[in-house]
């Protein structure tokens, strides 16, 4: 991670409730508006369901539920991310711009941070007006059971 911080990164930003988050643009395949979602009974509660991404069946994950964050409830934007060879859709409330961040403003999350976000947030960039959180995309799209294995 430290190597990554040495140069300027371009982050695709979006909001989930109050939170401003950003993912490396290189991990973002595309951003889609409202999609028809097929729910999957018995799946993890933060899995919204399946969408048809041009013939490829893709899992849609509700980032708000994943982070245990309040959402506006209008979650309708799909940020399609690529991680470790697979593709998943992360549902967010609204999409922002792509911004370039200064690595010197990056800090690890505070020790006091608790809840699911503790595991899923890598760190934050201190922007002038607010904090831009960087989620661990790999863990966000992996479901909790798998994430625990990663920790262990």
């Amino acid at each position, binding site marked *: 991670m430290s190597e990554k911080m040495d140069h300027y990164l371009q982050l695709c930003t979006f909001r989930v409730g109050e939170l401003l988050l950003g993912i490396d643009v290189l991990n973002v395949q595309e951003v889609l508006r409202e999609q028809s979602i*097929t*729910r999957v009974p018995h799946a993890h509660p933060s899995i919204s369901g399946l969408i048809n991404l*041009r013939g490829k069946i893709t899992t849609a994950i509700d980032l708000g539920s994943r982070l245990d964050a309040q959402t506006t409830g209008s979650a309708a934007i799909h940020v399609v991310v690529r991680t470790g060879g697979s593709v998943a859709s992360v549902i967010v409330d609204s999409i922002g711009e792509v911004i370039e961040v200064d690595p010197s403003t990056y800090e690890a999350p505070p020790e006091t941070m608790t809840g699911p976000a503790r595991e899923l947030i890598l760190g934050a960039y201190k922007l002038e007006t607010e904090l831009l959180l960087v989620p661990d995309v790999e863990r966000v799209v992996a479901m909790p059971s798998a994430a625990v294995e990663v920790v262990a």
Partner: protein
Amino acid sequence: MDEDDEIIGEFLVECSEGLDRLDQNLVELEETPDDREILTEAFRTLHTVKGSCGFLGFGQMEVVAHRGENLLSLLRDAVLEMSDEIADALLATVDAIRQITSTIDETGAEGVHDHSALIAELERLASAEAPSEAPADPAEPATGADTPDEPTAVGDEPAADAEVEQPEAIAPEPAAERIGDILVDDGEARRDDVEIAATEQSLGDDRKIGEILVEEGRAEGAAVEKAATKQRASRSDSSIRVDVELLDRVMNLVGELVLARNQMLQLTEGAKEKPLISAAQHLSHITSELQEGVMKTRMQPIGNVWSKLPRVVRDLSRQFGKQIRLEMEGKETELDKGIIEAIKDPLTHIVRNTVDHGIEMPDERVANGKDPEGVLKLRANHEGGQVVIEISDDGKGINADIIREKAISKGLISAEAGAEMSDKNVVNFIFAPGFSTAQAVSNVSGRGVGMDVVRTNVERIGGTVDVRTEAGQGTTFKIKIPLTLAIIPALIVSADGDRYAVPQVSLQELVRIEDEDEDHSIEMVHGAPVYRLRGRLLPVVDLRTNLSLEAGEPQGVTNIVVLHSDERLFGLIVDSIEDTEEIVVKPLERQIKDIDLFAGATIMGDGKVALILDVHGLAVASNLTGPGSTASWGLEDELDEGADYDERALLIVELADGSMVGLPLDQVDRLESFSPDRIERSDGRPVVQYRGAIMSLIDVGPSMGLSHGVLDGPEEANVVVCNQNGTLAGLAVGHIRDIVLDPEMHEEDGLVRAVVDGRVIDIAEPPRIMSMAGIGSDELIGAY
């Protein structure tokens, strides 16, 4: 380095194909030791293998192949005669080479193998019995390493050269691709001239046959040139090797194209622009053809798997001292490559079992008045979108009493239930885990693993396996598997507004219950819902409950999809039953892969995703498949009836005068009975109000020429409801008597009859009866 790997990879593929062929040839040779054609082919195959390994520097392998080839050449030249000893040695040679190739495959090098005993044996056989004046094989240069006489796997030496250094060209059975033959076939040369040329060649003329013919004016240079091209083409250009992964990728893309096409068709449905519509139709047409073509590229004849079996049967029957003849029928039946791979092991296992347990020792057979030679028969054919493979023997059959005892002693079933169970059902216990009745453990079978694995493997690919046996007469295993896994027929059902796909292979029948129909409602037994399906209790589960969805509003009707899993039947209540569709199966992403209730997902015509239900998972989640749950074993009879629908089961009904008539069961929708006061008349015809519509009744007796029917009587009328293209009609009969599976059918002068329990029974075709009565379309479904 990479290039080397590639060459070695190619060599290994060719080797393994060659060795398989050789195995087959050698087993055939034991039957027909004098078949020169097979001998020549076997020789050539081993020779090619030897040539390639010499070229690639695999010395050990070359030595073994060389000795084997020596022995084969003596056989081919009739210096030696085929014997058991020789066959064993040659097969051992094949095994040794196979062992080395697998080491090469794993490590890239030959590794260390000790084949000195085999080599000594091969040398002994070649020399001991060969008279010293045996002609040295001219195709056998002592070095062996540089054998230019045959095109090798790596050399792209024109095949025509083979003629030059191969003086055995005058062997009585020349290979089909000989240039001389091509010339003769094309009428460019005379057979005699070709033979003279070949003789000259064998006397030391080192020109090619083509050259000799041209130079002596016996053939045109251009014609020889053409024949040589043809010869090369027939060897290599007519087919190419394709990476299976690439094919899989193309297959996936075609699957997506099919979905895109479906969407396109839906979008253009209401369109008015003629050019758009015709373009969409054209696209649709091409897509279908493309899909078919790509599916075909993945198809392989089942003979590819079977080709290994003669050797298995031969080795085992030698080991046990049995005499077994292997017969194969339908080798060319094609199946998807993935499925071929999946059934390879189950098939081999059943064959091994049959040789071990099924077929008796020769003296035992003779004592029972049978031919000492047992017959093991493999048969494959297509049947309604599925492939049916039968493995049958004429052995002693499976003793149901032994199985029953064993099942009881293992606690798989209670003694009372066991006593009541029919032999046919008892025999199916051989598929239960840990079940083996072999008296002694052999290295073939009897260790209690096997048949359950066979069933698991077959079911994993959506197939079924069934066994039928008759004491003293033999046993038949019947495996039914789908043609392909990528695109399957499925029934679309819905629950709480979402659609789900149910694979057709698990589907038994559909039942619809009206709520006011009190005789046919869902009842509770010890808190578990059950439905009486033709007198048997069918456990039912609600899809909504299973998927933890909201309970639905009562709709006035209940739709039950009757499914089977692991030989057990159960009913699945769904909100509604939609359509049957061909769906493209797509795997689930890792986040939801662990949910056992779903087997995958698919994309529907409207572009939305639908989940595919895993019927086995559903049954497990509903506690319907616990081992030894004896209650559900009783359902097997029901299942068997269902499983035989496609085998033309007959519903036997009795008419007013006591005569019996058979109705094809697959054309029967439901059985009902109506009291006389429910029967009304409309337009002079008897009708009943049925499921919110008016259904005509046809008295079958009079329509088949009887003087009186059953409708006018004071008793309840038994009615067989038939559905033809959506039109319902009730056929009134006296009594419902029986369901006969797989009856003996006779057809004469267009009249079909069956013989059941020694009685001749006429077959009535519901569509014909309906159309004679002026109901439904005039199109006859010519099922019988």
